[in-house]
């Protein structure tokens, strides 16, 4: 068995107690939610963690609400609950993302707050939330603040969270009519991290011409890859395969994915090109009102 190094365990009763505890214990104390990223890291003995503050049972932090103009997902909502929620019904790319993460066992424990807070470059929520221009809600001893998802992750495993701060939820502005999105990764198997993933969110006018687009590549750099040029290249087109290929090149050509056990840089760029066409086509169908399934591809 692999054992984590010894740590002290705390289970505060409420959010305020957790925030005070995290601040008092300092930067080597870590919050523990579902533990699906943190526990494997502790078992590999990454980092010097002295204390774990178990926030997994804190009340009221797992609510999922679909409002008139935005959806809100509490930080402790699990991927499985999000996949089965009204928000996933309304926003298909949320369904793709929540239902495509790892496997059923991990989705039952892992949380959206934990996923984005780790800043792991291979996780799915942060890039998917970029396509929706989501807002991250943060609470600390000094009060609450909000950060755009694009500003939240600054580098691999690095976020704007200060010691003693926790993510309490994410807010997703609901897209206008004739919008659709998709988020799909390619994995070697369900529990494996994606080799690469692509997310695209589109809005069409009444003539099926694209009037807004947000694309993202994931798992191929230290943080989600975005491109204003690629987004702009899709606007004004009818999103034919040729249009998608041209826009995809603007974001994929300059990406230099790390060569690793999941493949070489060239191989990953090939995967990205295929995914970009597939995800773009699905997003377009959904923007036109088709209700189609999509999920991560794995053998």
């Amino acid at each position: 068995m692999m054992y984590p190094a010894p740590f002290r365990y705390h289970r505060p009763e409420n959010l305020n107690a957790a925030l005070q505890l995290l601040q008092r214990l300092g930067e080597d104390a870590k919050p523990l939610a579902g533990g699906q990223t943190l526990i494997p890291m502790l078992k590999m003995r990454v980092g010097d963690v002295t204390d774990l503050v178990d926030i997994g049972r804190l009340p009221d932090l797992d609510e999922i609400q679909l409002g008139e103009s935005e959806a809100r997902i509490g930080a402790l909502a699990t991927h499985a609950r999000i996949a089965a929620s009204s928000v996933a019904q309304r926003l298909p790319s949320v369904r793709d993302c929540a239902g495509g993460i790892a496997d059923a066992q991990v989705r039952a424990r892992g949380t959206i707050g934990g996923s984005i807070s780790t800043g792991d470059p291979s996780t799915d929520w942060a890039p998917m939330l970029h396509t929706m221009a989501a807002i991250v809600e943060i609470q600390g001893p000094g009060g609450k603040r909000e950060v755009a998802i694009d500003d939240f992750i600054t580098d691999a495993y690095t976020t704007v969270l200060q010691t003693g701060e926790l993510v309490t939820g994410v807010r997703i502005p609901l897209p206008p009519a004739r919008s659709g999105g998709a988020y799909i990764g390619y994995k070697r198997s369900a529990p494996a991290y994606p080799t690469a993933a692509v997310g695209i969110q589109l809005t069409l006018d009444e003539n099926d011409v694209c009037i807004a687009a947000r694309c993202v590549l994931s798992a191929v750099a230290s943080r989600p890859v975005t491109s204003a040029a690629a987004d702009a290249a899709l606007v004004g087109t009818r999103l034919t395969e040729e249009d998608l290929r041209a826009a995809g090149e603007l974001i994929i050509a300059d990406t230099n994915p790390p060569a690793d056990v999941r493949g070489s840089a060239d191989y990953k760029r090939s995967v990205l090109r295929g995914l970009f066409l597939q995800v773009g086509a699905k997003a377009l169908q959904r923007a036109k009102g088709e209700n189609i399934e999509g999920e991560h591809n794995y053998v």
Partner: protein
Amino acid sequence: MSETKPEFVEAVDIEITVNGKSYQRSVEPRMLLVEFLREELRLTGTHIGCDTSYCGACTIRLDGDAVKSCTLFAVQADGAKVATVEGLATEAGLHPLQKAFSEHHGLQCGYCTPGMLMSASALLDEIPNPSDKDIKKRIAGNVCRCTGYQNIIKSVHAAANELREA
């Protein structure tokens, strides 16, 4: 200021109900649930395969959900209801899933089987009449290196049929 790295940590008192029986123990916070089940309770039906949250051999049910017990501290399960493979059979005999795995050759070496059974039992509680896709998606986090999965899928269908007729 940060806390110092502890070399020794006091045990924490926990109470976990496993297969309907309540157990109270004092455990080190870093004890994983799979170790608690195997070493503290001697319930060795739950297997350790990869120990990295990949293979699913350690799958148990925590308050109904199939989860990987190598990626859960025992202290996190304090107060929870845990079900392991030992809890499937009753005095009346094997659980329909166990019978079906046996009859349809859903196992060869058997190492992955406890995890497969627990994932399948969670699936059938939720979806009594699963499609091939439902089954594949639900056991995608359980690795089997012998069967090629086809007979596992047949076994789950057979058990689903028997449970629906019961």
